[in-house]
């Protein structure tokens, strides 16, 4: 945006001290910016702010968090592609924006535009239901119930879970009513009031683990969920998809290797920091991991490929037909 112009003069005045000497070796030599593709107050943002605090100590430079919400994280990535900041501006976001975003909508970025410094958290999304449903809380009996009752309803939140459910209902020959809703705040009342039979949940269900008001039918992570070890994964239920969500830190493709390495070292240390672990595992209820660059990149690539294949099988982006 044009606002850079507003501050050009100020920038020059405020930053002349210390800038000109920046070299690859002493990265980082000025404050860094962490871009978050979601609004302030959401779980990504909460996590990012703690991550920034920890990184600040690891890198010895201030790390400022900037929210650029929009298009499920896509707006922030679009801006990041144009960054020539050599790693001083980096983003924290979810793998879904990278893998499925470009397939579902026309985006100004592609997965190859970024380097994925590290994966730091595993998502815990799931397919959930409510208490006292006629099919109980197991996946098989739900499928059975849905076969006998055309018009069983499912609440979707993202284009990705919509595609998965379309795939499942094609495989199992179901006739589902798929209802859109927005975020966990929109899904929870539908499930709790019983207006909808089962639903996608990004992480809201973790908060209901103790009360049991929101049983999990299927884990959408790579492994079973930490809080709901009884529910099978998609693979275990017989569908060959891995929609695991990974929260990753990324930089533009043109970032120098040495900078990426420095960030990766700091991130590895951050994933062992108690503050980051506490906010992630106790408040957001997601496990902290450290996945190095090659591993994340490979996982993301294979996910993109499998989504592409799935889409082809379904005959295009599911939203456009039906």
């Amino acid at each position, binding site marked *: *945006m*044009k*606002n850079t*112009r*507003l501050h050009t003069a100020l920038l020059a005045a405020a930053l002349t001290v210390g800038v000109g000497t920046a070299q690859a070796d002493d990265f980082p030599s000025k404050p860094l910016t962490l871009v978050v593709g*979601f*609004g*302030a*107050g*959401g779980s990504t*943002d909460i996590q990012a702010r703690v991550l920034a605090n920890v990184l600040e100590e690891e890198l010895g430079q201030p790390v400022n968090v900037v929210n650029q*919400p*929009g*298009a499920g994280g*896509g*707006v922030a990535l*679009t801006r990041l592609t144009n960054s020539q900041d050599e790693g001083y501006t980096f983003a924290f976001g979810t793998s879904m924006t990278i893998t499925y975003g470009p397939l*579902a*909508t026309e985006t*100004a970025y592609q997965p190859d535009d970024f380097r994925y410094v590290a994966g730091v958290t595993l998502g815990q999304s799931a397919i959930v239901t409510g208490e006292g449903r006629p099919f109980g809380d197991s996946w098989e009996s739900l499928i059975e119930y849905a076969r006998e009752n055309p*018009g069983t*309803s499912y*609440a979707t939140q993202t*284009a990705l879970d919509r595609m998965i459910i379309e795939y499942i209902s094609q495989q199992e020959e179901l006739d589902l*009513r*798929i*209802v*859109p*809703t*927005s*975020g966990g*705040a*929109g899904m*929870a*009342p*539908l499930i*709790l*009031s019983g*207006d*909808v039979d089962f639903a996608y949940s990004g992480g809201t269900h973790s908060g209901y683990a103790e009360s049991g008001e929101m049983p999990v039918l299927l884990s959408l992570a790579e492994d079973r969920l930490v809080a709901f070890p009884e529910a099978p994964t998609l693979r275990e239920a017989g569908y060959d998809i891995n929609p695991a969500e990974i929260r990753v830190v990324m930089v533009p493709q043109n970032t120098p290797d040495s900078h990426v390495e420095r960030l990766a070292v700091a991130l590895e240390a951050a994933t062992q920091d108690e503050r980051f672990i506490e906010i992630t595992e106790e408040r957001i209820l997601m496990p902290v991991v450290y996945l190095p660059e090659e591993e994340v990149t490979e996982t993301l690539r294979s996910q993109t490929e499998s989504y592409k294949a799935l889409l082809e099988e379904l005959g295009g982006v599911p*939203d*456009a037909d039906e």
Partner: protein
Amino acid sequence: MPELSAITSAFGDALTLHSIGIIFGGVLLGYLVGVIPGLNRSVAIAIAIPLTFYMSAYAAIAFLIGLSKGTAAGSAVSAILLNTPGEPSSAATCLDGYPMAKSGQPRKALKIGLLASVIGDLLSTLLLIVVVIPFASIALKFGPYELAAILIFALVFIAGMAGGSFLKGMAAGGMGVILGTVGLDPETGAMRFTFGYAELMEGVPILPLVIGTLALSEMFVQLDEYRRTKGGNSVRLGNNPDDDLSFSEFKKTLPTIFKSTGVGAFVGALPGLGPSVGSFMSYGLAKRGAKDPDSFGKGNPNGIAAAEAADNAVIPASYIPLFGLGIPGSVSAALLVGAFMIHGIQVGPLMLRDHPQMLFTLFAGMVIASLVMLAIGWYGLRLFAKVTDVPQHIVIPVVIFLCLAGIQVQGYGTFGLLVVFGFAIFGYFLKKFDYSFVTFLVAFIVTPMLEMNLRQSVILSGGDIGILLQRPIALFFVIATGLMVLHLMWSSYRLYRQRRRLLSS
């Protein structure tokens, strides 16, 4: 039901120095805005929202609520001393306040106004707290059918009540709905009216819309009016020893204050009516019920008390539908929804479940705001009397600049400035041609919620309208909406006939 410990800890949170500081700042700023004629509540909130971006969610909302409460109390000062209401809703305060001030008792008038304001505000806040929790727990059980029906009912109700003309209100509401649909379609993910701008994918950004249609356009309206009204003569505070409020005098106004608070709270709880209706209604009732109705309009303290108590009681009460159902019933409530959205919180009954701590802390903060208001008003009497002298020709340019700066600081750039300018023209026409602004804004704010619930209803029912028979609450609101449309048309026709007879006779 919340536990006692949750409530006490909420009060603990609200009583920290930081929190009180924020509320103090909000009320003080609101008071100033209220005192300065030409700067009104919605302009102030619209400009203040960008400031709150860097606060925590609680601090931001507490600040804005403090601001909006402060304006209602502050507006009495200019109504009494200048005979120009600082807010339109204090017009009723002028009727008795200015005569009283002119007759040499400005201090007494101001103190009555302040006490009535604070009591009205405090009682209404307590009412809000008592009513909202059971209300929200019922509303939590509402499904998409009920919510869609209630939202449509609320929109039609606001269109009928808020402006002069039901037809114009509905037309403005239609425009709000259209603007509210901009962005990604929630079901198909199709782009609607985005014209290729990624910024529009999440909908029309609320800040440029609000600053343009509310603040900047208001300044244009004021510039137009400025040439017609130049200069007033303000009453100065003297050192007259007779000019003070005694406790016995205050006691005599108490019954009026309580009654008017009731009227104000009732009007406030209904979406769309607003504080002006509340204050004039309670003024009228107080006059009719008085033993000496002739003394009203000549400086009767009960007149000031009635207008101010009701004016202030409307504000907290208007948050009942906001926190209970997620439906904003007034411009300032709609702006609060925007502020909540910016901070990632969905206002409504779900707050009780998801952010109970924050909700109770806010309530505690609102009670504190009432008390802070009393302190600021009491000790700042002299200062605020001076502020009424700030001339409009200084206020208007500064506010115009603040509108532009608010957008620029947010990083919207020149494009954002042009959008604001476009919305300012739009808002100017709404105001000049008297199309209901509240209906437009509320429609814009609730459209995403309305659309989502409508869609869910259509899909879940399979398009079968008979489902309503199993949903008595939804059915009730659908029928009520239909009846209301008929009633509004009939009553505006009758009103027209009356006016015409009056004119021709």
